[in-house]
């Protein structure tokens, strides 16, 4: 995907770069990648190359980071990516059941996109909410849903479908 950063995005980039000492603009890489992903849904090679050019670093420095961290998507995903915690403490209170339920309801495997392009799901590691498990989050705002039940998941999916139609 070929991208062009908007004036608004560029203003946000500049504000972030100003947080670090001179010549340390590379520190802005992770925050800027979050902004780019929030805008386009994932990080295309072109988007990463343009971030590299903006920060005056090598493209490889951007790829290294984008592949290391789990939050960056290197391919298109569903509009809503349900990220469900799959780590020990959440499993004690039913996370595995919820994951199965989401998989059944969406009818796609982990990482795949539903036919309507609306949903993907994946298991993620402990999200620092273990006492309120099972939990899931949805980017790019990382809205958080706690104490999940099967019914709750069904309702959430309905809400998201409605929301998608309104936009």
């Amino acid at each position, binding site marked *: 995907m070929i991208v062009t950063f908007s004036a608004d995005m560029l203003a946000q980039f500049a504000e972030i770069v100003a*947080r670090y*000492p001179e010549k*340390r603009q*590379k*520190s*802005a*890489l*992770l*925050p800027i*990648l*979050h902004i780019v992903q929030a805008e386009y849904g994932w990080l295309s090679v072109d988007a990463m190359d343009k971030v590299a050019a903006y*920060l005056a*670093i090598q493209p490889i*420095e951007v790829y*290294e*980071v984008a592949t*290391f*961290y*789990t*939050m*960056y998507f290197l391919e298109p995903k569903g509009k809503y990516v349900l990220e469900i915690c*799959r*780590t*020990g*403490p959440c*499993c*004690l*209170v039913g996370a*595995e059941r919820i994951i*199965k339920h989401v998989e059944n309801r969406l009818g796609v495997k982990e990482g795949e996109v539903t036919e309507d392009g609306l949903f993907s799901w994946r298991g*993620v*590691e*402990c*999200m*620092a*909410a*273990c*006492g*309120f*498990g099972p939990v899931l*989050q949805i*980017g*790019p*705002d*990382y*809205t*958080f849903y706690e104490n999940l039940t099967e019914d709750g998941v069904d309702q959430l999916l309905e809400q998201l479908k409605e929301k998608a139609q309104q936009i």
Partner: protein
Amino acid sequence: MARKLLLTHIDVPGIEGFEVYRQQGGYRAVEKAVKTMTPDDVVEEVKKSGLRGRGGAGFPTGMKWSFLAKPEGVARYLVCNADESEPGTFKDRYLMTKIPHALIEGMIVSSYALGANTSYIYVRGEMMPQIRILEKAIAEAKAAGFLGKNILGKGYDLEIYVQPGGGAYICGEETALLESLEGKRGNPRIKPPFPAVAGLYGCPTVVNNVESIAATVPIINDGGEEYAKIGIERSTGTKLISASGNLVKPGVYEIELGLPVEEFIYSDEYCGGIANGKRLKAVVAGGSSVPILPANLVFKTANGENRLMTYESLADGGFQTGTMMGSGGFIAYDEDQCIVRNTWNFTRFYHHESCGQCSPCREGTGWMEKVLHNIESGKGSMEEIDLLWDIQRKIEGNTICPLGDAAAWPVAAAIRHFRDEFEWHITHPEEAQKRNFGLAHYAEPRQPVV
């Protein structure tokens, strides 16, 4: 015992905003420090308080601060570790959501003590809502003159910035965190040099946990000696405990260090007992990295003394019969939980999160994950239990950062205390497979609960 210092005002409506926080006595510590104390005075109070790092290692905060190198003309940094990713730990997220100004106030006091003019709060990227909350709190503090140039007219300048991570447990390790803050992969650095000498951008840096930094506020308000009176021996003050698992009331609790573990689990003031009237089988007391304890070692040490929520008492008996306070991630397992499956889950986590620099960690965690999966699904052999033991022993102590140890210890402890359950999986392959996905009554619960 119900002493609170950090969560005192948690139920006051509007406490997340500057106005209410200030009305409740907020930012007095900044006023006191900046107007009446030298930076060294602040360090001295923190030393006297006996505060130990709340991020997991329990290293004395005042001592860490006094190691900070101070070469002329070189910037110094305070970096707050808000990466909170250790399974079982969720206190920092809670604190930042409910009382963000407690962290910001602590950041100002601590930065002043260290002579830092720019400080960063490194928050795990998934906590976008908390990042917005902190940014708002920073703007409010700045508007009120507690941050920015010439704070309270006393000539001290400070800017605080919030930095998001990208999703990687390893970035909680302090040198990986600094690499990440510099815009790189989160590969831990070889130490020495320690961050106190060469940290962020090669400058002297202190990395502290959210809760450690927030604790400096009551320490400055009441004095280090007062703080040191709370708690027992070298476990001074209060601690936030994240309680999860099969409890009636999981959640975040502030306890005075020294509370008996039994009271923490069963008292209505805290967790209210084990959910659904079940019996307790085991506890992981300090986050997934610390050794699991069977119920018979949770309430009493091997010497028969009451087990207390202190650094010393939890560690009593070493790894043979004790565990660690760690980050205070307290996970309770009821009689239905499968220790083998839990161990496999944790090992899968560490394999997933290994940065891959050291072969014992990169290869060993993957190998353990496979073997544990085999055993858990009823396809294992008795030799594989010994193999697991051997692998974890060869990881421990042989890696650049402590993630290797953190992956090894839970496996060792599970085999040490629940070997019969591993054997059960091997001798009952069909039942193990049938129950592979569900939660089943496997081995006998270790001990009827007192």
